[in-house]
Each structure stands twice: as C-alpha cells, then as structure tokens.
C-alpha cells in the first residue's frame, strides 16, 4: 500500500478565488448547475452554496457583518470530502461501490453505485450528492486518477496561495504544526487544527486549520459514525418484537369466550 495521502487546507490564506472549484470541475468533467444557466444565491457572494454530486470542491464564504455593515469579517474555506480514516459512507454503502484506496482515500466507484443514497445521509459532513448525469452518488476522489500517475490533485495544483496542500499525511501534519507555530508567534492564538488527530473519526485525511469554531465554517463539532446507533436500535427493536409477539400470542390464545 502506498503511503496515506491527503489535503491540509490552511483557511487563513484562502482568498476565495475558486480556482480549486474550477480546476476540480474541469478535470473531473462535472456538469454545470442548472444546465449552465447562472443561479445566484441572492444572500451571499457564494453562489455554489454546497458540496454535492457536481461540486466536489466548494469555497465557503463565511460573511459576518454587523447589522449596519460597518464592521465585517470574511472567512474563506475550500471544503472537500474529508476522506475519513473511519468513513461513515463506506460503512453503510450496501453495494460495495465505496472503497478505500491504496492511498487511504475513500472513493465511490460510479459504475457500481446504484444511487440508493444511503451514503448521503450517512456522511457526517454532508459532502456527497447525486450527479444527475450519472444518477449515482459522487464526491471528491482526491483525484485518484491523477495520483495513480504521480500527479497532485487538480485543486491543489490550481490553488494560487497554497491554502490547499497535498502530500503524505505525515508531511502534511508536520506542515500544519509548523504553520500553527508561525501563527501563534504572530499573535493569532485562535488558530487550531480540525481533524488532524485520531479522535475525530480515526483522523481526517483532509484536515483544516481554522480560526473560529467548526460550526462557523459549517463543520460538525462532533462528527460521528452512523453505526454508533446500530446496536442500541437493534436491541430496542428486538425488545419491541418480543413484546409484540407475546401480546399477539396472548390475544390469539385467550379469547375469554365472549365479548370484551
């Protein structure tokens, strides 16, 4: 197996140029939204709005303004599939279409997916969607095809500010720690890493440097695996089944000989 690969996204240097989005769309030949007819969000400069089956990269604009708009803050973050070491989508996929690759990334094989959409609800980060052209669930592959021939993913290649960094997880973690130290030296004490350690789903192979709470970036504070509910749900269902069974037996056996 090749070494685990991934992304380290430093949101502090993202300028919201969306070059990553365009590069991703071009390389992966993803269709345009609404047949190419532009649709504006109406309340944000962000008109992509979300990750889904035809947007595998999404530059989030977090636009925070005071009511009179005299004070403002922009946060930008290029979001993507987290390629979780313990992946919820891979856990639930009933067709085996979702696999872990030799690069420790998570890929949906479009020719095997039948579009049941179980993975969409199972992903703790809401990154998966249906591509209307293929009718299957799709998301970032971390440019598996490019990695196979030694190229870096299209988004990282296109990023002009080195906000998106691609490499081995070991190297990326070193890079992230160095950047953390640099920021703290300059007085940016809010900076922290999201998803770099094993406590979050075994580690996210796409992890982030953030300067505010995860919720502000639209990231879950405590992402979990869907299977956490399996055992308890199954036990309660069995208890229910036994009670209903006993009630049925009692009702069918004890007729009491008359009206009730």
């Amino acid at each position: 197996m090749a070494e685990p690969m991934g992304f380290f996204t430093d949101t502090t240097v993202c300028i919201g140029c969306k070059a990553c989005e365009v590069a991703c769309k071009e390389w992966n030949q993803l269709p345009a939204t609404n047949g190419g007819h532009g649709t504006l969000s109406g309340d944000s400069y962000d008109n992509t709005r979300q990750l889904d089956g035809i947007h595998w990269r999404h530059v989030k604009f977090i636009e925070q303004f005071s009511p009179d708009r005299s004070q403002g803050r922009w946060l930008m973050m290029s979001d993507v599939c987290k390629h979780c070491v313990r992946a919820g989508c891979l856990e639930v996929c009933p067709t085996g279409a979702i696999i872990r690759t030799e690069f420790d990334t998570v890929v949906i094989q479009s020719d095997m997916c039948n579009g049941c959409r179980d993975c969409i609800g199972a992903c703790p980060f809401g990154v998966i969607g249906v591509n209307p052209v293929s009718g299957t669930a799709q998301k970032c592959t971390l440019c598996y095809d490019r990695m196979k021939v030694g190229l870096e993913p299209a988004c990282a290649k296109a990023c002009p500010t080195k906000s998106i960094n691609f490499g081995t997880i070991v190297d990326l973690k070193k890079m992230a720690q160095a950047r953390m130290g640099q920021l703290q030296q300059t007085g940016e004490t809010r900076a922290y890493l999201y998803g770099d350690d094993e406590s979050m789903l075994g580690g996210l192979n796409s992890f982030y440097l953030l300067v505010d709470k995860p919720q502000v970036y639209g990231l879950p504070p405590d992402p979990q695996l869907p299977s956490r509910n399996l055992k308890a749900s199954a036990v309660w269902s069995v208890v229910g089944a036994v009670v209903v069974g006993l009630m049925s037996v009692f009702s069918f056996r004890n007729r009491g000989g008359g009206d009730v």
Partner: protein
Amino acid sequence: MSSTFFTAAPHWRWLIVAYFFLGGLAGGSYFLATLMDLFGKSEDRPLVRLAYLIAFPAVCVCGLLLTVDLGRPERFWHMLVQAQTFRPMIKAYSPMSIGSWALLLFSGCAFLSFVAVLAERGWLPWPPLLRLNPPAPLGRLVTAVGALLGLYLAGYTGVLLAVTNRPVWADTTLLGLTFLISAASTSAALLILFGSFGGGSRDGIRALERLDASVLVLEGLAIAALVASLGRVAMVWLNGWGLLLAGVMLGGIGLPLLLHWRRPSRDSRWWIGPALVLLGGLTLRMVVVFSSDGL
C-alpha cells in the same frame, strides 16, 4: 446544536415512505398470520389466509418502489451481488444491505405461503403445494422463517434511518422499535378491515381488535419515548410536522382506542377505528422521513 444538522439529505421521499408503510404491512401481516395459525383457533384460518394473500403482493410492490427510487434502477441487483466479482454482497453492519437480503428472503417465504393458500382454496390445483401449509413440517418451517423475516422487515427500516447522520433519524435509537410496533398495529387494523369484509370469523376479528388496542397503547408510549429521546432536537417538530405527529397520537392512536373501549356494539361505522390506525401509521412515517429531509 447536534452535529447531525451539518449533513445533507438523501432525499428519500414518497416512494420510501410508501415502502416503509407497505413493508410494515407485509411483514406485520405475515407475522400475525403465523402466530394466529400457531396459537389461534381453526376458525381463524380465513384470516390467516387473508394475511398471506396480502403479504406477497405487498412485498412485491415494496421491491418495485425501492427499485424505482434508485438513481440507477437497472442496478438494483448490486444490493445483493457484487457487480465486479459476482459474489454475494453482504455487509453485516449496513442495515440497508441486510435489509435487502431480508426483503428478498421474506419475498420467497411470502410467495410460498401465497401459493399454498391458492392451493388450499383450490385456485391452484396442484396438491404438492399443500405441503407448504402448516401443520405440514415444510409449511411450519416456511411460515416460521417468514414470520421472523417479516418482523425484521417491519423494524429494520427505522434502524436504517437511525444508522445515518441525519437530524431526528440519528438523534434517537427508538425508530426501529416505533416502526415495528406501528407495523403490528397497522397490520392488525388491515386484517380487521379486510377480514370483516372477507369472511374472517367474528371471534378472530375480536382477537385482532384486542391485540390492536394493546399494541396501540404500546405505540403511543413508544412515540412519547421517541420524542423524549430526541431531547432538544425535538424542537424541530415545533411546526406543521409536530402538528401532524400530534394528529397521529390523537387521531391514529387515541381515537381508535376510544372507539374500541367505548364500542357499544358493532355499528355501521366500525371501520373508522382501523382506518384511522392505518392513516396514523402512514402519517407517522411521513413525519419521520419528511421532517428530517427538509433540515
């Protein structure tokens, strides 16, 4: 805020709601029929036959609904067979994977019991088929396995919702229990309705009515526990969905119970109670599925 609010909706809509409802009816009817055959009286046999006649067509519709709902319906078989290796596709920790197998195997049992009933009634004149009816050993085996699979089919749909990361669905572990109990109450109601028209014995219908009343009490408790288990997430039901859920509690559970307990005699409006139970069961699944989809 629960981390489930940061996820995307799978857009499971009417086809899935209909599947959850019909799957519950198919599995629940088969389960009740088998227990009625085992523990009931010989006069109950018409009701048992009726349930088996309901279960198979219902589960066939279930398969169609699920297939049509897929983004690529022609690949429905990928649920059961690995497309690349052609080996069986089974994932023990994926409720949808195991549910697909349960649906297939239950369909098989439901089909065997269906043709056995046709043979019993003389509509399918092939005597060997009668061996598929209890008390013949093969019949006992088929119905016992089918009843267990039917029960699984009735409840796994709720577990499937819980094993996601969606708001409401993944914020409780009681959906499987609630759906299973609701499947029992709606199946009993369906058998009461059809049985009253279709020659079910009065004694058998009364046994089903008694069962439905007790299961409805249990269902009310399960829904109350479900809402309590959601904690602050239950606030998402402070809207039309909450009103509909209250409607399920009052109109789909409370009112049928009241009609059952206060029933002076079997008057011309006897069908209202079971019809409300069925409507309540469908509405319950609508509320659970759609209220999360919009978040």
